């Protein structure tokens, strides 16, 4: 349920499914004379349930990062209460289940990538037999295995973010907190990150995502809360928040002018006058990925990060957390055949159809990227013919509806 009022989402009672619960949470920073200087978080209520991908949005200084730090126990609330997995946020037992990627990659510049991941794996008390394969697969996943022995200090920001992401996943966390995860990353890496997020969500992991890049958030989150001035201004299901209830969009393969005229005429007959027919544009991200894929297919050399490999085995669905593969590949296949908004693929709507087409295109590109040298586990692109058939059916049904039902859609 979305709310247009400021702050305070309805606090749900604490249950087994509740991963994060904040009640009346406030954080006031004081100056030397203990005068209130900044009210960073102002009496917010927040519930994040198991398996959710929750987006925390807001402009700079809206209190997103402060909220995350309160949840992680790095800051103490001035007022209100927080429970993470039903415990105090500073309870060390919680930390075993949390992965955290901060807004900047606070890594040791003198360690190399391998040593960095080894360090964080040790903090999770992982024995060599577990941590070594995990590190190898994570490095492969983020495409940095070839520079694993270079000091982090020599990495670009994007490469550091990738190692930051890898360290956040080293413990196969139940709760992943990502603060600006795609900041500084190129579109390829961004796509990889989103892929990982969706994969983890599919496994029932809970993800708290904080980002300025709204399109990234839109692609992966189930629910969002939008903050401003330390308060939650609006929150709810992403689909509900974004859906324009007073508009309908129909997507079809390219139509000739005659067909377009017929449709407009048909709609006018139904009393729909505010109609436009345009050619859809592909996303810039898709175009970019396509160009990079072509370059990689041509074998153009780069000293930077390579494309990410497949998702680390231990993170895949069905893996038991010990690095053994389960039914992850199948589930990831299922995942990528769905639209990013999470709408059921068996009952496609018109809106979903647009997304699915873009997604299919993206999968094609990712497939071609990874086929350049890295094994791909991306799903097959849905057969275009079937889609065309679906589109034709839709138009047919619409035309038939004209005869049987004169009531306008909107």
């Amino acid at each position: 349920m979305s709310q247009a009022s400021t702050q305070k989402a309805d606090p749900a009672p604490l249950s087994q499914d509740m991963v994060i619960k904040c009640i009346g949470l406030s954080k006031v920073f004081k100056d030397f004379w203990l005068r209130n200087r900044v009210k960073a978080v102002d009496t917010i209520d927040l519930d994040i349930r198991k398996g959710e991908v929750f987006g925390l949005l807001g402009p700079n200084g809206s209190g997103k990062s402060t909220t995350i730090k309160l949840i992680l126990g790095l800051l103490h609330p001035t007022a209100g209460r927080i429970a993470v997995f039903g415990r105090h946020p500073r309870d060390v037992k919680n930390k075993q289940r949390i992965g955290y990627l901060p807004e900047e990659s606070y890594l040791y510049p003198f360690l190399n990538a391998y040593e960095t991941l080894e360090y964080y794996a040790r903090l999770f008390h992982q024995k060599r037999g577990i941590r070594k394969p995990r590190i190898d697969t994570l490095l492969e996943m983020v495409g940095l295995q070839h520079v694993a022995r270079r000091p982090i200090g020599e990495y670009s920001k994007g490469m550091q973010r990738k190692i930051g992401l890898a360290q956040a996943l080293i413990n196969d966390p139940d709760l992943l907190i990502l603060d600006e995860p795609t900041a500084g990353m190129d579109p390829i890496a961004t796509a990889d990150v989103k892929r990982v997020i969706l994969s983890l969500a599919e496994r029932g992991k809970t993800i708290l995502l904080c980002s300025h890049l709204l399109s990234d958030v839109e692609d992966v989150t189930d629910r969002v809360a939008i903050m401003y001035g330390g308060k939650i201004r609006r929150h709810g299901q992403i689909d509900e928040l974004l859906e324009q209830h007073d508009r309908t969009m129909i997507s079809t393969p390219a139509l000739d002018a005659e067909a377009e005229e017929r449709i407009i005429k048909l709609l006018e007959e139904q009393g729909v006058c505010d109609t436009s027919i345009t050619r859809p544009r592909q996303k810039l991200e898709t175009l970019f990925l396509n160009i990079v894929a072509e370059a990689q297919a041509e074998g153009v050399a780069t000293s930077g990060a390579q494309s990410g490999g497949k998702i680390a085995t231990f993170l895949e669905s069905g893996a038991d957390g010990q690095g053994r593969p389960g039914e992850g590949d199948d589930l990831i296949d299922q995942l990528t055949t769905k639209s990013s908004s999470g709408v059921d693929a068996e009952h496609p709507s018109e809106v979903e159809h647009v997304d699915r087409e873009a997604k299919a295109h993206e999968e094609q590109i990712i497939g071609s990227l990874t086929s350049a040298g890295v094994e791909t586990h991306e799903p097959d692109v849905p057969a275009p013919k079937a889609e065309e058939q679906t589109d034709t059916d839709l138009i047919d049904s619409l035309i038939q509806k004209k005869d049987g039902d004169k009531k306008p859609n909107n």
Partner: protein
Amino acid sequence: MWLIVLFALVALTEGVGLLLVAQGSDAMGQIIRSVGRIIANAWVIYGLIVWREVPWVRRFGVILLGTAATQLLALVFWAMGWTDMVIATVGAYAMAMIFYAGLWVIRILLSPGVAVFGVARTLVDEAIRMKIALVFIVGVAILIAVFPFIIDQDDFLKYRITSFLTWSLMATSALLSLMTLFLSIGTITKEQAQRQIFLTLTKPVNRAEYLIGKWLGISLLNLLLLSVAGAGIYAFTMLLAGQPARDGADRMAVESQVLASRQWVEPTPPNPDELKQMYDYMLESARDADPQRYGKPGDPLGEVSAADRADIQQKVMLQWFSIPNQYSRTYRFNGLEDAKNYPQPLQLRFKPKLAGSSINGFVYLHLRINDRTYIKEGITTAAPENLLKLAENNFHVIDIPTRLIDEEGGLSIQIRNPTPGGIRQPVLNFNPKDGIEILYRVGGFENNLVRTLVVVWMRLIFLAMLGLAAGAYLSFPVAALVCMLVYFTAAGNAYLAESLQFYAAFPKDSVPFFEKILWFISTTLKFISEGEFYDLFKLYIKLIASGFMLVTPSFGELNPTPLVSDGRLVPIDMLVRAVVWSGGVWTGFVGLIGWLIFRSRELARVTV
């Protein structure tokens, strides 16, 4: 693959070569073996370049390069005739190799998947790779390698070795102390400023484990560095000891007085009440002269201030170690039962001084051991006197056979101040601290050096925790300032205590606490009303300094360097005290304070 190819190549060419030699084709065999070796070396170099990213290959390459560079440098020095530099170069190289190997061992020890080990291992990596520690390490290595050659080469060998031991141990201790403080403060303040701590403490690591991990890393690094320094000090000491001595006595002194660990016994009066009587007499005299300060005769001793009591005690000791002309004094050395078990003779070590002009720089005295007159080493007689002529203000060592130790395990030494040739000699005296004592060898130099390094290590362990505790709350400059203050206070505790004693008047120890506060208030008002602001300033400086010293450990009491450089046994109780107090109580106390502050500290700052 690299090694397999290498071994196969060597085995093949050497095998074929030897086979050909065995069959009489010497030339061909040698050619094949030579070619094989050339190819093998080329293969080694190729492997070092191609697989340089593999950690163990990189390590191997560093060792190989270091060895080659050292050989080259040593060869250059040797060609130029600088043999000392050859030795110093090889010594520094050996220390570096020990360090490298030790570092490898530490990394293996800290490799298990334990959070504390993870933090500790990263700390070690930070210390080495960020080059903060490396500067100090190189400094220690260079100083130890260079010290033997900057000491006056014309001096007695005994003194050269003593100087080397003193300076090298002091330099090692001071440099490692500074490194420990900078490293411990730097690591924790930097991680908070650069926020690496966010990632570490959002993992299942509590703050105590984080502090312990850091402390463990620094302590292990210090252990390694002390081991390297110890190995260097030992090697260069042995190198010095192998050099020609000035004479036979010098050589003997090196063996028996420097490269040894000797137990020592201080003198006591034969009559246990002798000192007490002297003290009472001196106190009564003082009370007669100044009853306001010392109290009336018969007043309780507690009424006399601690400073005055210490002053009288010092005067008593000075008097007891002074022998006026024509007088004699007997010094009793007890507890020598164990000395009978050692083959070496006892050493009577004394340094006679005169309270006036000497006769041509010499001191004359009569010496009797267990009521028999000392003639010369190992020989005593029943004859009443034998005049000894000794250089004034120099240490003299006389060997005394252990068979002279009496049944009670003691030895009585009587010294008389004579009138040689009718000339009245001024008062003969000895420094109460070490002016006259008996020493006997109980072990070797090695054991002593190890004990010394352990005591220093305990000090570094404390400093590591101090730096971490300070850095957990304060910024780097402030924490460094506080820690340096503590360090210098701890190092100069004895001197500071002595200075403060006479700096300003304080209430007597026996005065109750509440009355002391009243005294401070009234004295403050008095100084203000009289305009004695400088006295007021001194009073409060002493108050602050005394309070600070109260919570600061004293390194002076646990300083083994003078002992080891003088060939004295570093006593086991010093070792135990160092472990218990420096490594245990003080470290634990400071760590607890640091943890209490750190555990409730907000690590993140305002970012909106």
